[in-house]
């Protein structure tokens, strides 16, 4: 039962604001073919089970999981869909392997955001239908409320949030799997139009299309398939109350819990010292700072100053979102956690290209399902 689980193959497709040339199924197929080739597995004969992550409202199809088996090679095979972020799907696959039920499990996540013509209206359907939705407020307001209280209590300033955008979009210039690479100044970010003050439009990740597929295997199989398995040393997840009325606004206690769960499994006590880099939530710029603190990489209210000092830069002591993050690459909706895990895998394998970090062994990956949720998922990966 205590078997280790490894990522033995990764594949991706898209990561562009529009992908009119491919249906979502064809995009998933591209990612799947890459992942199976990478893992040297045949989905028809080698894979024991498939896990996809999807949100029906994003798909525009009820019970959307019924539409994933064919392009994954999962027809007439065990499969299930998790209505959650990609890391929740990864956690489910880890459990399938660790129970001994499966030797090889595939995880899939995708976004066809360009096909959702009324994304803000769809997101509004995540608000409580009786208590909140009748107020007719754009759901980004939840981020505005959280950012305001976070800045107020932590003493973090708006420049620090803008610096997250500058860093991540600059990092994206080195990464071909991104759409929003740019060399911006703090003033340019801060001068952008407001979205839900103090949150500005330029501090908000834009949705993109894409698909990510990963192949997981138990230790014995992983060692037979590859000489560079990426181990999932720890994985945790946690949710706070859904209530906008009573949740914590300045801190992310659910993310602290999710991190504790993952760190405990990985045997990590001092994350800043023991982990080499992180790919974490930056759906909104302030979220990166708030998450850095909740993940225990520094104390409450310290992330902004450390970021300005360059600690989280590509060449800093603890690179955060070296890939460009969601601000640089675009936000992949439910597949976002898998996007971050993909970037961490590429780094740990030494395949990240122009944004490759030197001498990295331990990665921290974290994701959030976006407004208005309080969902945190955390994974620790090692090579």
């Amino acid at each position, binding site marked *: 039962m205590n078997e280790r689980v490894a990522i033995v193959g990764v594949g991706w497709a898209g990561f562009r604001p529009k*992908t*009119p*040339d*491919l*249906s*979502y*199924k*064809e*995009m998933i*197929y591209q990612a799947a073919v890459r992942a*199976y080739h990478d893992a040297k597995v*045949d*989905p*028809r004969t080698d894979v024991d089970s498939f896990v996809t992550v999807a949100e029906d*409202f994003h798909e*525009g199809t009820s019970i959307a999981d019924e539409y994933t*088996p*064919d*392009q994954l*090679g999962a*027809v*007439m095979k065990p499969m299930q869909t998790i209505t959650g972020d990609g890391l929740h799907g990864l956690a489910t696959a880890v459990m399938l392997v660790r129970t001994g039920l499966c030797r090889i499990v595939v995880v899939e996540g995708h976004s*066809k955001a*360009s*096909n*959702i*013509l*009324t994304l803000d*209206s*769809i997101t509004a*359907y995540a608000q409580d*239908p*009786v208590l909140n*939705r*009748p107020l007719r407020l754009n759901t980004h307001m939840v981020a505005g409320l959280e950012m305001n209280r976070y800045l107020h209590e932590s003493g973090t300033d708006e420049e620090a949030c803008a610096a997250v955008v500058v860093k991540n979009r600059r990092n994206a210039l080195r990464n071909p799997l991104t759409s929003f690479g740019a060399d911006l100044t703090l003033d340019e970010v801060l001068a952008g139009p407001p979205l839900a003050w103090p949150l500005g439009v330029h501090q908000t990740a834009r949705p993109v299309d894409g698909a990510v597929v990963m192949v997981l295997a138990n230790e014995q199989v992983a060692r037979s398939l590859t000489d560079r398995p990426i181990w999932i040393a720890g994985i945790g997840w946690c949710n706070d109350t859904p209530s906008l009325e009573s949740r914590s606004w300045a801190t992310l206690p659910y993310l602290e819990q999710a991190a504790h769960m993952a760190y405990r499994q990985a045997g990590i006590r001092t994350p800043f010292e023991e982990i080499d880099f992180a790919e974490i939530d930056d759906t909104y710029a302030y979220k990166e700072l708030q998450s850095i603190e909740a993940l225990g990489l520094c104390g409450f209210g310290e992330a902004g100053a450390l970021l300005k000092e360059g600690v989280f830069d590509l060449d800093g002591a603890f690179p955060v979102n070296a890939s460009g993050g969601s601000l640089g690459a675009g936000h992949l909706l439910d597949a976002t956690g898998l996007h971050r895990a993909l970037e961490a895998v590429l780094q740990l394998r030494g395949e990240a290209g122009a944004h490759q970090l030197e001498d990295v062994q331990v990665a921290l990956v974290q994701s959030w399902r976006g407004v208005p949720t309080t969902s945190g998922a955390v994974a620790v990966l090692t090579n």
Partner: protein
Amino acid sequence: MTSRFKSFPGTSLSEEDFAQGEVLFVHDALKAEYARDTGVGIGAYLAGLRRGVILGSYCSHCRKTVVPPRVVCEWCFRPMSEYVPLRDTGVVNTFSLCYVTWDVQRISQPEIPAVIVLDGASTLSETSVVMGGILHKLSEVDPKAVRIGMRVRAVWKPPEERQGAITDILYFKPIEE
């Protein structure tokens, strides 16, 4: 215990309040609009329908033809080898007589959904999955006369009215033999 209370706090409800939707109701209309990038496979299929052609895709490894065409063979997971035009005639594999409409109205003359195995497509695999079937409707036929195994033919919209949609075929009707 409650017998000691003469009146209860709050606002009492009447049957009328329920009937008028004053309680237990929140009215809301979902604004959900989606585009559909049809991609390579389904895009070719819809473009074919506009020309009056039903396309399938052929897997040379499995030696199977499926409708509509797709980029990957779901049996062997290899890319499909080629797209092939199929005839617009076929055989009813299964059908139903549907007395309730899409928008939930009861009707006396049923709609007739049917899966039609097109001529030239593969029929059965080892798992008895029908591959060459198109889901459509039957018409110009007495519902009582429809049979499994009945031969049918597509009735198309006039070319100038076709839009590259599954509705470019109006329905299938029996072939008189």
